[in-house]
């Protein structure tokens, strides 16, 4: 069995973001990067499956991005992926989800992966389109927002998270693609021996130009901080008076008391 896991490196979401010089994305200055959280569920699920199948499947990790993503790749390898592909792209942040999906699909086409795991979305762009895009381009069935995963004899059974807390069960025949959601599993942290062993695993580098065949269909027009909301009103003074004023405001400015 051949498994592909697609991972992206994203900034720590607790960082302070500022627009870049062109105002179309965030500036990377002073940001700390890590593996996209949803992609960690993807890696973990792939490794769990490998363990379930006695170590037979080969897990390939794929990451599109600039040089800094090597750290994310190494983490995936330390978690248990066998080899990695780094699609080197210094400007991956300017590509739209369709292009990213097409890049990955172009790589995966000839490789005959039985299962592809991706995150449900990336924490920074949040389009949720890359996974489904890859599936479409490869002609794979696809299940999104997966919170439960089972595999037996070429059939994948997943639990999907639907609206309003409802869950659905879906069966897919491999080859297939699933996008992983929070709650699917508890990603392991790599052990020290595995971190050191990962150093020796193969990472092939492919320049993005070799795989990019599509033009962007979406262009980021502007990236800026939301306009500051007006300051709140603090009512002070006598409580009875405050209550009257509050009722007045609710009547005048909201629909609550109408």
């Amino acid at each position, binding site marked *: 069995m051949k498994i592909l896991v697609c991972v992206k490196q994203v900034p720590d979401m607790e960082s302070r973001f500022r627009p870049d010089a062109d105002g179309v994305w965030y500036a990377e200055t002073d940001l700390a990067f890590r593996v996209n959280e949803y992609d960690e569920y993807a890696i973990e699920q792939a490794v769990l499956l490998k363990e379930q199948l006695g170590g037979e499947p080969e897990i390939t990790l794929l990451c599109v991005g600039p040089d800094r993503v090597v750290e994310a790749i190494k983490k995936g390898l330390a978690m248990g992926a066998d080899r990695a592909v780094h699609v080197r792209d210094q400007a991956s942040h300017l590509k739209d989800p369709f292009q990213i999906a097409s890049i990955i699909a172009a790589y995966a086409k000839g490789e005959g992966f039985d299962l592809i795991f991706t995150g449900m979305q990336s924490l920074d762009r949040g389009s949720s389109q890359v996974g489904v895009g890859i599936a479409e381009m490869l002609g794979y069935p696809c299940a999104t927002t997966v919170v439960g995963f089972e595999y037996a004899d070429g059939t994948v059974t997943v639990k999907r998270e639907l609206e309003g807390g409802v869950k659905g069960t879906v069966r897919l025949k491999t080859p297939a693609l699933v996008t992983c959601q929070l709650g699917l599993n508890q990603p392991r942290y790599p052990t*020290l021996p595995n971190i050191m062993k990962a150093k020796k695993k193969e990472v092939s580098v492919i320049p993005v130009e070799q795989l990019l065949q599509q033009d962007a269909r979406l262009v980021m027009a502007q990236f800026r901080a939301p306009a500051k909301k007006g300051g709140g009103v603090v009512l002070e003074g006598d409580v009875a008076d405050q209550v009257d004023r509050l009722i007045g405001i609710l009547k005048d400015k909201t629909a609550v008391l109408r």
Partner: protein
Amino acid sequence: MAARIFKGAEFLITEPGKDEVFVPEDFSDEQRQIGATTEQFVTNEVIPAREEIEHQNFEKVVQLLRRCGELGLLMIDVPEEYGGLELDKATSMLAAEKISGSGSFSVAYAAHSGIGTLPLVYYGTEEQKARYLDKLTSGEWIAAYCLTEPDSGSDALGAKASATLSADGSHYLLNGTKQFTTNGSIADLYTVFAKVDKEYFTAFLVERTMEGVSVGPEEKKMGIKGSSTTQVILDDVKVPVANVLGEIGKGHKIAFNVLNIGRFKLGAAVTGSAKFALSDGVKYAVLRKQFGRTIASFGAIQEKLADMAAEIFASESLVYRLAGLIDNRLATIPKETPNYYDAYQKGIEEYAMECAIAKVFCSEMLAFVADQVVQIHGGYGFIQEYPAERYYRDERINRIFEGTNEINRLLIPGTLLTRALKGEIPLQREAMRALDSLTTPSFEELDDSIPFAAEKALLSGLKQLFLVVAGSAAQKYQAAIKDEQEVLMALADVVINVFAMESAVLRAEKILPRLSEAKRQAVTAAVRCFCFGANEKTASAARKAAFYSEEGDTLTILLGAVRRFTRYHAAGLLQDKRLLAQAVIEAEKYPF
């Protein structure tokens, strides 16, 4: 490029360059990942159990130590042939730093993986390692180190515990009481120091289940309450001769060499604790409002935030610089060397003085930080519901164990003078030169094109000052200087501050080109704030040493030297502090 291998204490008579120091910004991806794994382990598994641990649920401690075993956190310093990873000291320090957020647990971890395991690693025979090391690196067995006794703490070699060879020569009979053993009640293997025939100080590997071994009640402690501290009582314990560790009569080597690493690691651990404490302090400061504004907006609080960040920056710079010094030296020893660990020990011993510096500087840095964090919390800092109170209690022990800060301070000039007498570093010659140069006026002009020109000029001056003051004291007292502890302590303070300042300056100079403008400004501010404070302390210590040891003309000359060499023009100090405070406030934690 082969790294220049510095001798221990050599920094006092040379000017190392920025590319000759290791800095945390040099960590490899693997090292950073090891840091991240450690951090996640602490956040996800230890912190949720902290209350339980503080209430002495030692089963939980053992369970978590075994988790450390699974994660590989107990094999960092263990050779590969015994299932270890044998990573460098920088990595070992990083793990110690990251685990420190767990409070008491980190003490159990440090005692097990450090003073508990290392004697066996460094001095064990093949057979002893085969017997025990696996059990220790997996956490199946917990280790402890029993040096201190009720009547011998600092004077460790004054131990009374005795070992007597049996008539048939098969075993030693051990008797005595060991005091304050960390992990005492949870350990399975104790490294016990006892005297053979009341004379030959020797280490023994003692198993918990050996007949006659018993453990006293838990000590009721001020802090680190979640770590076990007990007496270990040896009552006619039959220890097979195969369990003698190292050579008979060479126990002091084991005891002290392991302490070198222990002191150094303590430096790393307290640096981590200080980061946690600062983080809680600033988070509170940006939330707490008084007079209609956050207390973080007050200059008095900002100054604390800035000073803490500056001190931690120096502490961190010092610890990893020392890691680099040791790693570079150890890397020159071929693994095939027959007595690899002898050479290895010598490599570490070379930096005994720097290890003592790390111990003292970093533990006192944490004392300062913990105190400031309590103060930022006001009354809530005094209340157990808030973390500040625990930081304050837990901090205290670091100035006492692994050699009290007095003992470590004394060791600094002590080591230096011994090495000078042995001719290992030309201290005397340099001191004479420094004294001569006092009569020539100085025409230093700062070359502003060099980063940190003022700080570097200050450092080279402070080294001169040390040589002058120490040189004249040495000349006056000769060998009897060892009895002038007040003078020695003051001299130690000069050395400690010089090493810390230099570490901060060199690190900043090295990383500046890699930083964003904002970070560059913050780092520069941290260096200046730190150098200002440390220089004031150095000046005071040097003056003290002068007044203590000299009078008349010599005193006047020395005081002149203090004035001349401690000049540091800290224009813009207030702006620097405010800028640094802003960086802390923006990050809501230690910003570097």
